[in-house]
């Protein structure tokens, strides 16, 4: 029941957020409050707690049926919903001083509502359709450069796979001797998730999106939409256990993961702008996540969740830094944002897994896991991680040529950026607050 309330509230909040769009700050504050309240609600309310609504008694975790489809909140969905709403709250707070678009709050809330609906609806065929709707809606936050159309193309191409796979699995339930149906379904599901995650060779939308689009809009796509794709993939693995038990599963994921990380690392050494660096950093991180998923062990899944949290922190910090740098460049003031540069660098270092940032914590676990059996793979991943750092070192001189900024009072933007940057380092030094609870 709580899941339905979450979906309903976030979608209904679109209306006041849209009506208040002229007062951008108020609309964003509303979005942040709604998202934070829902995120904390999902984190803190026990799923067996009962409450009264319109004179009827409900349990928080109780499944409900809407139009014949089940809305269900399991422990994985509960984690995912908390994660999504807290990301939403952070993005709305960051967007207040850093994002100039009037529609960020209403569209952001709409995207969050659809993503949440995708995570709790069953069967999974509806989840894919709702995810597609959310991804398409998120395009309305972009500026019309080539990355937006490319992202939309890959999302649309990813849609048929899981839908047809769902029908194939229904057929398999009726005719269990036809094992070819399972292989085709695995292939279709794998291909669709590879398109949506931007794995090599379907990676071209990832850097193209970040290169020219608004950083906080890109952060919403990388962290909220991307995070939902990951949670849905984990959902698929939980629902269809045979998918992870396929003999090719581990090898395919290792190959795709290492390939994506290495290509991201190599391209990350080039000087194609700060936005592209964010995209390459995300590619490296995605490669590592895919590799961890291929391990399939319990420790691998725990590591997966830790890496998703640390990756999100890195993406949000870097995007906020880039937005601040862009805001300064776009304004009449010739000064640049020192805290923006710090946040962009801290975020990228975290995405690259550079110590002592928060990204390093989860990477350390991965390297330890890999060095025992696959030292060469671990070495390739270490070198791939160095790619975006080399790119950062090549970009920094240009950024520093802007000169020493004149003295000015600290603004709200600086406070947000400082907190995000300090968090990226602080959580790296004290990771138990983030991971080991």
């Amino acid at each position, binding site marked *: 029941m709580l899941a339905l309330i979450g979906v309903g509230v976030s979608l209904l909040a679109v209306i006041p957020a849209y009506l208040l769009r002229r007062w951008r700050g108020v609309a964003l504050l509303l979005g942040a409050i709604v998202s934070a309240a829902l995120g904390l609600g999902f984190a803190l309310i026990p799923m067996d707690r009962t409450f009264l609504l319109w004179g009827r008694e409900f349990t928080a975790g109780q499944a409900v049926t809407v139009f014949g489809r089940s809305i269900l909140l399991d422990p994985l969905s509960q984690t995912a919903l908390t994660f999504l709403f807290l990301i939403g709250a952070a993005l709305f707070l960051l967007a207040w001083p850093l994002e100039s678009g009037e529609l960020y709050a209403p569209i952001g809330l709409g995207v969050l509502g659809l993503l949440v609906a995708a995570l709790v609806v069953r069967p999974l065929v*509806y989840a894919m359709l709702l995810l597609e709707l959310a991804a398409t*809606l998120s395009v309305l936050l972009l*500026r*019309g450069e080539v990355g*937006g159309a490319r992202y939309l193309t890959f999302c649309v191409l990813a*849609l048929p796979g899981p839908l047809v796979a769902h029908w194939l699995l229904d057929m398999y339930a009726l005719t269990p001797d036809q094992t070819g149906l399972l292989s085709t379904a695995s292939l279709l599901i794998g291909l669709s998730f590879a398109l949506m995650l931007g794995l090599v060779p379907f990676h071209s939308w990832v850097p193209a999106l970040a290169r020219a689009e608004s950083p906080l809009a890109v952060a919403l796509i990388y962290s909220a939409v991307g995070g939902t794709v990951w949670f849905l993939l984990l959902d698929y693995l939980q629902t269809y256990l045979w998918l992870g038990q396929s003999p090719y599963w581990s090898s395919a994921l290792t190959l795709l993961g290492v390939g994506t990380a290495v290509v991201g690392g190599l391209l990350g050494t080039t000087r194609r702008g700060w936005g592209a660096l964010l995209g390459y950093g995300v590619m490296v991180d995605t490669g590592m996540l895919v590799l961890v998923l291929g391990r399939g062990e319990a420790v691998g899944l725990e590591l997966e969740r830790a890496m998703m949290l640390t990756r999100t922190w890195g993406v949000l910090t870097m995007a906020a830094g880039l937005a601040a740098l862009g805001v300064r460049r776009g304004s009449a003031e010739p000064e640049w944002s020192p805290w923006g540069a710090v946040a962009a660098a801290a975020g990228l270092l975290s995405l690259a897994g550079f110590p002592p940032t928060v990204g390093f914590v989860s990477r350390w676990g991965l390297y330890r896991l890999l060095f025992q059996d696959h030292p060469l793979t671990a070495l390739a991943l270490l070198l791939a991680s160095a790619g975006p750092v080399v790119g950062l070192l090549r970009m920094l001189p240009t950024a520093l040529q802007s000169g020493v900024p004149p003295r000015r009072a600290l603004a709200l933007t600086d406070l947000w950026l400082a907190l995000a940057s300090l968090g990226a380092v602080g959580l790296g030094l004290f990771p138990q607050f983030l991971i080991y609870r």
Partner: protein
Amino acid sequence: MGTFLGWMERISALAGPPAMAGLILALGLVLVARRWLFRVVGMAAVYFFVGVLHTQIIRPEVVLVKLLVGAVVCLALGATGQAPAIGSGRRGEGNGAGGEGAAEAATSSRWRTLLRRLPRWSDDAPLRALALGAALLAAYAGSLRFSLPQVPSLVGLACYLLGMVGLFLAGMAEEPLEVGLGLLVFLNGFDLFFGALEPSLVVAGLLGLVQFLITLAVAYLALARAG
């Protein structure tokens, strides 16, 4: 409603070779023509013929909903393509007589002026026609080798053809609106196939909503790009 359903029954008589031929012509118009109006008309014809083919596999009420979605999508695409910011960028690249100077036209003979006013093909028309031929060939071979389940063979061929042409369109596109055309054609092909697998009204509605949002998204991207 009864009148509409009566119409649906009448147009369902076209399902089969006439609808397939119409679909190929409509796809040719969308793929080869460069003037936006022609492409939108082609897109409307694609939606119509896909609807006709749909009558073989799903209920007429659902087909009616799909045709309505197609009408809204084509109206939105047509209106966006005619927007001044986008239209000014398109003038001169089309296959009309635009771009020629008035003085030159005045000095030419009447016949030459008339010939110039006839639609001209753009430079890449042969390549696009070749792409259509390749799509036809690949779709035919694909439908023979990997025939789609639950649909008649002609509908299977139409699904492959729509998918292939959609991919070609999206791949050859230079602007968001053209990418959108490709994605919508691709989705039409998938919808035609998936309608037979999952005839649920909710799925049909959600797929229609996806198409509408894609139209909205590419229209927004095109306008944002044109500034």
